[in-house]
């Protein structure tokens, strides 16, 4: 009888993908420099302009952590689609590995890359804000992992569109990402938004992810969404998109037309 997951096959593929993902030191170094620039230049300057949010620099820093994690998760989703476009997916689907196992492996790649890339930025923000402790580091990584799994599941589920048109997929993903970021509490609290924006923001899982992280770290809780609601939404996103991704990959993904 076939087992649900064949861990050996997952690990083999995972090792190969991780080697490829960390192949370019330039990109990893660049992502850290980008983070530091955003934090110390943009964050510092904007925080001098913001008057109604106390310690906005740290508020922005935690938002930036979620934003960076979101970008890495989106990258993992795009990587899946690009792999399909370049013919890699057809090869993998021809291997003796189940589709669910393949999906889990893709999620594992994204989570590992997310943790490795985000660890130094997290340490910097926590050290600067005087909140550094290993409990806080682990809690932050846990929140980021849940958010990242949710976003990756969403992006991989959307890859179904890429099998019709890669351009439309790129456009939808870029627009969706931009709207998710802008209509969220990543850069500003919900109290700063007008009622329309606030309502849209309340349907956005990134808002809950960002505010959950701030709750965990104990940053200015008066401006944040309720913690139990936040954790419920983040877990729901994570579990929901995992099942959605497994469903789509099992039913619809068959490779992609060459451009």
């Amino acid at each position, binding site marked *: 009888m076939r087992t649900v997951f064949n861990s050996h096959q997952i690990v083999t593929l995972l090792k190969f993908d991780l080697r490829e993902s960390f192949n370019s030191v330039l990109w990893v170094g660049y992502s850290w420099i980008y983070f530091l620039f955003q934090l110390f230049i943009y964050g510092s300057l904007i925080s001098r302009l913001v008057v109604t949010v106390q310690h906005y620099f740290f508020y922005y820093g935690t938002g930036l952590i979620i934003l960076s994690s979101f970008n890495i998760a989106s990258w993992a989703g795009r990587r899946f689609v690009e792999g399909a476009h370049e013919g890699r997916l057809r090869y993998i689907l021809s291997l003796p590995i189940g589709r669910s196992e393949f999906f889990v492996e893709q999620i594992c790649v994204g989570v590992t890359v997310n943790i490795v890339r985000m660890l130094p930025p997290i340490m910097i923000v926590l050290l600067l804000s005087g909140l550094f402790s290993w409990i806080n580091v682990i809690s932050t990584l846990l929140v980021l992992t849940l958010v990242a799994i949710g976003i990756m599941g969403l992006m991989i589920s959307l890859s179904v569109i890429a099998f019709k048109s890669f351009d439309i997929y790129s456009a939808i993903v*870029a627009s969706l990402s931009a709207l998710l970021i802008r209509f969220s509490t990543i850069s500003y609290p919900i109290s700063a938004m007008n009622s329309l924006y606030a309502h849209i923001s309340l349907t956005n899982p990134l808002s809950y992810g960002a505010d959950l992280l701030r709750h965990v770290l104990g940053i200015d809780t008066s401006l944040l969404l309720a913690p139990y609601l936040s954790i419920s939404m983040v877990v729901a996103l994570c579990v929901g998109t995992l099942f959605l991704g497994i469903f789509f990959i099992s039913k619809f993904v068959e490779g992609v037309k060459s451009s």
Partner: protein
Amino acid sequence: MNQWYAIMRVLRTDLSYFFRTKWLILTLITLNLSDMIVVGAVYSNIMSFNYFVFYVPGVVIAAMFAAALDVGRRVHLGLSQGVTQYYLSLPLSLEALAFAHILSAGLGGLIFSGILLLVALSLVPQLISVTTIMMIPFMFLVSMGLGGIAAMINLFSGGGDRFWAFAEGVQMILLGMSTVFYPISIIQSFFPNYVFLLISLNPLSQIADVLRGTISPTSTLSINSFGEITATSFVMLVIGFLCYRYVFIKVRNFGKI
């Protein structure tokens, strides 16, 4: 073949590439629009001044920069896909090819930011003024200068995937170290004098400040402002032209950068 005619043909091809992917253009416009009406509006509520009116012209300038750099991206793809090698086989001088790419960056930036400027005028009616109309040729000039930056990236990245890292890095530095997103007074109090001087010389700062000058009653718009924009853009344009020329000589002689 007449060189001007050839330049126009390359220009037309570059621009048709730029505007071909309609979905992507629509997305870019949506992104910039959401920046204006969401980010600008929400930040206004937590700042002590009307950041929305300040931010909208900044978004127009940031979009112009992105569009001008996109032509450089096309040239980069052209280098790796053999399009440049094909151009070099045509009766088209190196100078004409380099100038055509710089010109198309200028036009691409102008058309794209022009669309956003129209949106900006409807959102911030105070921007409607003679100065804004006078800005249009300068936006074209600055876009050409920014196209020159794309040429420098092409040269110094040496082709390959490094181009993307260089392009993103340059975009981040030039936008972050400018007055596109924050007022000059904040920058002056934050950075040392020599960094502040560099930020003042950034053409993105110069054109954003002139565009905002149409709104501010205390602005000091002068011939000098336009002169400074012309001078810095022209320097970048010339450097960019020389970079493209050098890249194309290398491609002609060695087949790659």
